[in-house]
């Protein structure tokens, strides 16, 4: 029992793995597979961003820039310079990590609003470069001819294969994040969120951890970006605009700050919802704004908190309310 409890997170991970394996069997057609693949990119981005926002309490409004920087780097290296895909992929992720580190050191000295504006400014600059460096990026009309994902002679050609690759990566990086937040590092990050001064007094190297988590969240975005480039094989600046950065923040907020499962739920929900609401497409911009405002006012813990609260409410219906029983039901020994 105690082993099960201690490793409850493994159960969740296993459940996720099983659903990933089984999901394609229940999909009516290939179109839904595409949505799930895009959902996978969003989950990667959101889990990474949540480590930064939810756990550490730092905000990035330029995350789409890391996503795009990685996609363009591997795209240009493999299509224009004919690098093999794994080399392009690795170079893209490496470049983003270095850029995030360089940006992170000065930026994370900034607090709150300044950090938000600093990352936003970075995002806008990168977006402008994507649009203006036409020789390299193809400018506003986009960049074509990126090869499909491949390694050691194996090409990931079908959507179904790609689905398993993406979600395999998601599972791996999700488990990594889960371990991280349960570790000493995770506690340090949460400490920084609660009070930087208190964390510092307790011996947490605040600056080091902030840069570390910033780079890590950029790393998640870079993996998503490189996968994205080799999946769609055509990229254009619009995908990596400020609007995308806001969408990612919305996913984190909706799912619930400081909840990895919330990040998964938020990302998938906001991937599927616009598809379901195709009929009222032009209203989706209002939807993001509405979700951000309403969530922050009424449900600051996002879906994760909403789920927990409703689960408790349901439990409350069945368990008679006596203090001893209530305590028992909540933490069985």
């Amino acid at each position, binding site marked *: 029992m105690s082993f099960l409890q201690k490793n409850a997170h493994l159960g969740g991970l296993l459940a996720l793995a099983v659903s990933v394996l089984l999901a394609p069997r229940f999909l009516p057609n290939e179109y839904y597979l595409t949505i799930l693949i895009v959902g996978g990119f969003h989950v990667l981005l959101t889990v990474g961003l949540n480590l930064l926002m939810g756990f550490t*309490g730092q905000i990035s409004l330029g995350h789409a820039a890391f996503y795009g920087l990685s996609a363009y780097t591997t795209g240009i290296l493999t299509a224009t310079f004919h690098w093999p895909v794994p080399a392009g992929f690795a170079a893209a992720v490496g470049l983003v990590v270095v850029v995030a580190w360089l940006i992170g050191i000065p930026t994370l000295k900034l607090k709150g*609003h300044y950090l938000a504006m600093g990352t936003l*400014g970075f995002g806008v600059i990168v977006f402008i*470069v994507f649009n203006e460096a036409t020789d390299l990026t193809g400018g506003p009309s986009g960049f074509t001819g990126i090869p499909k994902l491949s390694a050691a002679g194996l090409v990931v050609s079908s959507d179904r294969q790609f689905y398993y690759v993406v979600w395999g990566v998601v599972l791996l990086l999700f488990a990594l994040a889960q371990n991280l937040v349960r570790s000493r590092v995770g506690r340090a990050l949460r400490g920084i969120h609660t009070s930087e001064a208190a964390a510092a007094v307790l011996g947490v190297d605040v600056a080091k951890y902030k840069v570390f988590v910033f780079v890590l969240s950029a790393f998640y975005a870079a993996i998503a970006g490189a996968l994205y480039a080799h999946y769609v094989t055509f990229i254009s600046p619009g995908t990596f605009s400020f609007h995308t950065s*806001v969408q990612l923040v919305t996913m984190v*907020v909706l799912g619930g700050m400081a909840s990895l499962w919330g990040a998964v739920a938020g990302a998938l929900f906001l991937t599927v919802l616009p598809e379901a609401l195709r009929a009222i497409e032009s209203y989706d*911009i209002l939807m993001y704004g509405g979700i951000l405002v309403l969530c922050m*006012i009424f449900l600051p813990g996002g879906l994760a908190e909403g789920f927990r609260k409703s689960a408790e409410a349901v439990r409350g219906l069945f368990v008679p309310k006596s203090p001893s029983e209530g305590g028992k039901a909540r933490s069985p020994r």
Partner: protein
Amino acid sequence: MASASQLLQYVISGVTVGSTYGLTALGFTMIFNTTEIINFAQGEFVMLGGMLAVFAIRWGGVPLPAAVALSVLLATAIGVVIDRLTIRPVRGRSVIALIIITIGVSILLRGGAMLLFGKDTYSLQAFSGGAPILIGGAALLPQSLWVVGITLFTLLGMKFFFDRTISGKAMLACSCDRKAASLMGINVEAMVTLSFAFSALVGSLGGVILAPITLTSFDVGILLGLKGFAACILGGMGNPFGAVAGGVLIGVLESLGAGLLSSGYKDAVAFVILLALLFVRPTGLFGKRMTERV
């Protein structure tokens, strides 16, 4: 190499556009001074100023001066509504929550404008005549004089308000210490609402005087807001004169950058300045080095 008259031309258009950045920055300053919130929806007030005036003329058929007044009033009312509906319920929450809410509000305003007015770009007629005045080989639009004049007037008005009126002093007191201000009988909530109203007023005024020079559309708010913020940082956060000076400086640098280097990267200039400043001197050119308020 650019000739002297060309340079003069760049400076003139830079000062003109920069003045409106300055007005946006003033809007940021008003809210920041009372609440320490950076209002990410500030740029949308600028957009609303221009768009509402355009559509007051198109739909309502009102003359230009009435349209200008109407759009500024409407935007101000929207500012008050935003404070009441979205800021007041979460007062006292973390900075990140407030950032997210004002971003949400900015998206709602932008999306609302898109649905209401469409995605086209519109122009507003100039306030007085379109014939440019020639100075030393450079053309000066009469509208530029309006822009600079109104900006200076607003700045002086703000100085008067903060130095000489009881409400202005009350607002400053709120920024110094909210609790002490409230103990002295200042209605802090009302002051915050007032700061949102003023900030919307100043922002939309900037939007409406800029619209005849640059075109306006539902999505001009993001960049204008960001540049306004860059102006704030450049001038030192919370300092009204610094804000306007920062705006003018960014406008001129941007205009010179566009003319001498590359027009495609024009919009990047403000952000490179913003990042460089944030990294090197976050208190701005005219700001004092501050210790963190606890």
